[in-house]
Structure formats: structure tokens, C-alpha cells
């Protein structure tokens, strides 16, 4: 029983670390939004969001320990999104202004 209790405690600690990191990154993102970065704000915000998503994926969703197949599914769907964006923008980027 004690073994379980200490396991539960370390579970809370490990998960808590991830939570603290996510909250800190949220605060960082909000701060970055107000800095005059000359149009790079969105890039900075999205970068931080990606880091947060990576923490969520790796530490909360289990991607760190999962099989290569599952990681392939995660990366594959993101890659497909990139394809959708890229090919659609071949139209929008090259339209006559």
C-alpha cells in the first residue's frame, strides 16, 4: 500500500512538472504577444504553441514511450496538414494582386 502511495505521489510530481511548464509557456506566450516584434508575433506565438503541444504529446499523451507506429501516425497527420496548406497556398501566393 505504501508502495502505491509513493508511486501516486511521484505520478503527481511528474505530471505536475509538465503542468508547470505548460503554464509558464502560456505566460510567456501572452508576454510575447504584447512585444513589438514587427509582424513576427504570430510566428513567436505559434512556436511557443508548438512547444506546448510537444510537451502535451510527449509527456501527457505518451508519445515518448510509444511505438514508432503511433509516432508515425502523429507525425503523418501533421505532415498531411502541411501538404494541404502548401498546395493551397500555391494558389493564394501566386494570384495577381
Amino acid at each position, binding site marked *: 500500500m505504501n508502495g*502505491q502511495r509513493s508511486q*501516486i505521489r511521484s505520478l503527481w510530481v511528474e*505530471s505536475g512538472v509538465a503542468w508547470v511548464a505548460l503554464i509558464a509557456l502560456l505566460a510567456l506566450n501572452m508576454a510575447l504577444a504584447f512585444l513589438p516584434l514587427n509582424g513576427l508575433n504570430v510566428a513567436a506565438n505559434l512556436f511557443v*504553441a508548438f512547444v*506546448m503541444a510537444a510537451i*502535451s504529446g510527449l509527456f*501527457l499523451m505518451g508519445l515518448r*514511450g510509444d*511505438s514508432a507506429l503511433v509516432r508515425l501516425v502523429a507525425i503523418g497527420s501533421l505532415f498531411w*496538414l502541411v501538404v494541404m496548406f502548401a498546395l493551397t497556398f500555391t494558389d493564394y501566393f501566386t494570384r495577381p494582386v
Partner: protein
Amino acid sequence: MSSATLSQEHADSDLPPSEPWSNIAEETEAASFGMWLFLGTEVLFFGGLFLSYTIARFLYPQDFLEAARHTDIYLGATNTIVLLTSSLTMVVAVRGADLGARRLVWICLAATAALGALFLTIKGFEYWEDIREHLVPGRGFAVQGFGATLFFSLYWIMTSVHAVHLTVGVILIARLAWLMRSEPLRLPDLPVYGLYWHFVDTVWIFLFPLLYLAGRA
């Protein structure tokens, strides 16, 4: 700790595996794989919305960003904290099941559902405020410009679609919490619910900067 390391000692006290699986570990691995595939489809589902957002922002950058300043950053940030905390309780519930800690599991599941419901309540209040401030495209829309109309159109659509996903999650997690108070732990179910919930949280992690932090500088 992934579900693949689940020990067999739980097998006796928990529900037997469903067909066609011959043991719980196999069924859990299959269920998680199936949920990851479903989340892959959700990436593309929300992806269509993100694409629409990107194009609207690309076409009308100025009024788009001007309109974005009208979202309530405090409510948005509060909701983000609520959702991140619900992910904390969810991951403890899922991993607690591996430890066989039934009480921890159902309490954390209930907490997750409650935090989700809190998110929806705050969102509902925010919607009411937005309506009062005439931030709905159509007659009486308060902000000028094509970009503004598109921004708020997408704001309403994206947050509603997210809220629907959240509501489904809250209902299913609350139901599971209720069942886990007395029934044997459903080991293959928990990672599946966890993955779905974390995904809904991750979508919000992207929605928040795009809808609430845009145009603030």
C-alpha cells in the same frame, strides 16, 4: 509509462478482454492505436479551419488583426489555465489506473469533467458578452472591414466546433467517472479517453494564440 508496460496482475480483478483480443495488454494497445488514428482525422478536421483562418488573415491582414483585439484575453487565458489543469487531472487518472488506484482514478476523472464543464461555463459567459458587444457578423456587426467579418466568423465557428468536442468529452468522462466508482477498472478505455482529452486541450493550445493573442502588439 505507456500502456504497453501494463502488468498482468490486474487481469484477474478487471473486466475480460473484448473480442477478438486475447489479453488486456493487446486490447489496450489496439484501442490506443485506434484512438491515435482517430486523432489523426481530427488534425485534418480542425486543419480545414486553421487553413481558412490562415487564408483570411493572409488576404486581409489589417482588419483581421484589428478585429482580433476585440476578443476577451482574460477569459481566454483563464480558460486555457482551466483546460491545462484538466489535462493534469486526466493524465493522473490514466496513469493511476495502471497503478490500480481506483479512488484516485474516479476522483481525477470527475475533476477533469468538472474543469471541462467550468471551461464551457466561462465560454458561455464569454459568448454572451460577445453578443452584447455585437461581435457577431451580420446585422449590427460592430467592427468594420472584410477581415473583421471573416475573423469573427471563424472565431465563432472554431470555438463552437472546439466546444462541441469538449462537451462530448465532458459527458463521456463524467459517465466513466461514475462507472469507475463501483465497477472494475476498464483498463483499455482509460488511455483512449486520455488521448482524446489531451488532443482537445492541444487544439485549444493553438486556438488561444490565434484568436486571443493576434494583433495585440
